[in-house]
């Protein structure tokens, strides 16, 4: 019987019920949307690092990671490369030679990290060609071409086509100097790396260093699907038994920190929103109880006992929540899906965001499990927030209540 009374109660005052249902819908939508947005935001961060800088997996000679000297190589890397390329999980794979050295212009000198790369492969590996702002991406076909960061060029006070001298040691610890011409200037998202990383053609650097053609210092593997990460790490270790195989999480601990902090703050923010929702519901339900003093008093006077009143009010909230939750879920799911396809352009909130090379379009995404967690959390919160108004109704004195206007 109580079920029926509460069901009718909520339809007697449609606007009031509508307000409560709406707050639940909006609260649920907000929770889902914020989680999906936050997830999208740091997914964006990860993608930038993985697809434009690190790749999913890198293999080095263990001594190379420690000493950073280019004589510690992975031998027969061509063969390894071929095997990796033929694997169906691999999107792209590239091998590089790396050495530390110094770059000098007529006015200034700076410490740098020289990457010997295969320009064609890096187009798919880290889309390096898209970062080029001035000049061309190794297209002139000339041998001694070098690609440097805009920031480094500014520091060295040089322009496109200027000549620079690179100094580094070869594998026999002899000092090598070589002249290069600036073929292009690039700007990536990570400006501090722009000052340090310069790129030349791999075969040239190999010759200058005195390495074998088949040797390289770094093999970077980009996967088609992140889920294969663990199995591909095992596969890579089997190909290069002596090598050190690392995924992007170990390669970039900073990113790990960003993700971890983001997680924490997402929880805090969700908590704050839950609180806001709670107050919204408590207030509306309290209003609705206080407004109905006369009616509740009457019910009591004709013999409905207090625990039943309590249950009745909780049931009302339950109905309202049950109606709000599915709609909220649906709207949340729709908006997440919409922005998953179309993305949210956040550049309007921050001028010049894109100018720094940050991607300013965020694609929301959320896995199905999270939807359920959020929905259940809101469901419980909504029911809990009905307890206080229901309790308030218990303290009612029927005879006074009836006489109230």
């Amino acid at each position, binding site marked *: 019987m109580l079920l029926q009374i509460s069901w009718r109660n909520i339809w007697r*005052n449609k*606007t*009031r019920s509508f*307000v*409560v249902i*709406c*707050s639940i819908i*909006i*609260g649920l939508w*907000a929770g889902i*949307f*914020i989680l999906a*947005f*936050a997830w999208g*935001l740091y997914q964006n961060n990860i993608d930038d690092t993985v697809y434009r800088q690190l790749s999913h997996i890198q293999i080095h000679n263990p001594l190379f990671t420690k*000493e950073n000297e280019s004589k510690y190589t992975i031998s027969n890397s061509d063969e390894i490369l071929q095997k990796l390329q033929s694997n169906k999980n691999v999107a792209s794979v590239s091998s590089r030679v790396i050495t530390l050295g110094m770059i000098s212009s007529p006015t200034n000198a700076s*410490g740098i990290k020289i990457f010997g790369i295969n320009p064609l492969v890096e187009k798919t590996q880290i889309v390096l060609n898209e970062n080029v702002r001035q000049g061309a991406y190794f297209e002139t076909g000339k041998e001694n071409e070098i690609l440097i960061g805009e920031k480094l060029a500014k520091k060295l006070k040089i322009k496109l086509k200027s000549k620079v001298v690179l100094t580094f040691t070869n594998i026999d610890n002899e000092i090598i100097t070589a002249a290069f011409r600036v073929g292009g200037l690039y700007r990536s998202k990570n*400006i*501090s790396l722009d000052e340090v990383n310069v790129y030349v053609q791999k075969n040239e650097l190999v010759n200058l260093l005195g390495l074998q053609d088949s040797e390289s210092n770094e093999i970077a593997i980009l996967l088609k699907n992140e889920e294969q990460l663990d199995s591909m790490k095992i596969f890579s270790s089997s190909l290069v038994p002596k090598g050190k195989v690392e995924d992007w999480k170990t390669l970039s*601990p*900073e990113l*790990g*920190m960003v993700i*971890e*902090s983001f997680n*924490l*703050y997402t929880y*805090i*923010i969700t908590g*704050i*929103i839950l*609180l*806001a*929702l709670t*107050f*919204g519901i408590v*207030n*509306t339900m*309290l*209003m*609705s109880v*206080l*407004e109905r003093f006369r009616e509740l008093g009457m019910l009591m006077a004709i013999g409905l006992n207090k625990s039943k009143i309590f249950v009745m009010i909780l049931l009302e909230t339950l109905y309202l929540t049950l109606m709000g939750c599915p709609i909220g879920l649906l709207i949340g799911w729709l908006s997440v899906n919409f922005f998953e396809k179309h993305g*949210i352009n*956040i550049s309007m*909130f*921050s001028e010049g*965001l894109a100018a*720094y090379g*940050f991607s*300013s379009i*965020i694609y929301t995404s959320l896995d199905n499990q999270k939807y359920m967690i959020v929905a259940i959390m809101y469901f419980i919160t909504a029911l809990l927030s009905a307890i206080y108004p229901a309790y308030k109704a218990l303290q009612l004195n029927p005879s006074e209540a009836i006489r109230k*206007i």
Partner: protein
Amino acid sequence: MFLKIAWLNIWRNKRRTLITTASVFFAVLLAILMRSVTSGVYENMIHNTVSYSSGYIQIHQKGYWDGQAIDNYFEENEKLNQLLLNNREVTHIMPRMETFAMASYADKTKGVLILGIDPDKEKRVNKLNEKIVKGAYLETINDNAVLMSQGLASKFNISTNDTVVLLGQGYHASSAAGKFRVKGIVKLGSPELNNNTVYMPIQQAQFLHGAENRLTAISIMLHKSSNIDKLKSTLQNQIDPNKYEIMTWKEMMPEMDQFIEADSTGHFIIIGVLYFIISFGLFGTLLMMTFERNHEFGILIAIGMKKKFLAFILLLESLMISLIGCLAGVIGGVLVVKWFTKNPIYLSGDLRTFYENYGIEPIIYFSGNKNIFIFQTLIVLTLSVIIALYPGLKLMRLKPIEAINS
């Protein structure tokens, strides 16, 4: 008269007023807390980063930043120090001397950053003494020893009490060369600093470079939530602009500023959603309130009250309630933020290790920046005023007879 009627009206039904005030109160409180937490993360990060590197503000000899040469060092000046310390925002000043030099040990030579520091002041600002992993901390400004960062020490394979040779360029083209005992090894948060830093007592550094009493910079530390741009312009008026240049960390480390700006953009959307929920909560409360009073409004109109006056009174009521709620919210916000500043929440687990590795205090820090309080309150106040227009609109369409009979 309207004011008085409105004022009396809101106290006629205290419970209703309290509920509405409470929803404004919580709206302000939550908005403040949210913003305070999100800005607090960055402020904490900045505070810890600049305490090792540049300080919030640095004072150099004019022209130093562009040239960054040793000849642009300036003489330490007691008057300048006093002037800085007299500013209320300034918590510490750290004299610094920064040069690059080649360091040699056994058969290895590497370029290193030499930081001439006042060990005692540094200890107080960034607790450098607690970062020692081996050996001991420097004692005085002329202690004849250096601290080496952990990454650098492992590259050299050097241990405490070994001697390192430093060779660099001194003041006015003199050469700087010296032997120093490694007294301790420090683990620094930033990988970049950890791989190439040598700390040296400042007098030793000045002596090594033949630049007695000269400094590269005075690094100024402030409270976490200070208004840095305002302080910069105050200082600019007090200090001879032809002799010194004043730079903030934003100018010296634009990458970090950009990173923070890019990262915080997402928060705008999140806080936008919060405003949405808050407004809806407020709206719900006001809607209920209007309902409840329909009967009363009907009678008032029936006995000759003009609708527009009544609507105006209603608006005044909402305004008063909003103002009371906002005031209470600000006070509540200040108290909560103060409480958490005094008793910070410590992080645990993975995140704690992450933060500690980076030399950042593992706490959830609530920013006490005044702007947050002012802005958030204004935003909520504006929202509540806009929402308060609704009951008035509703009233204009009220049919007295129906209202009285409801």
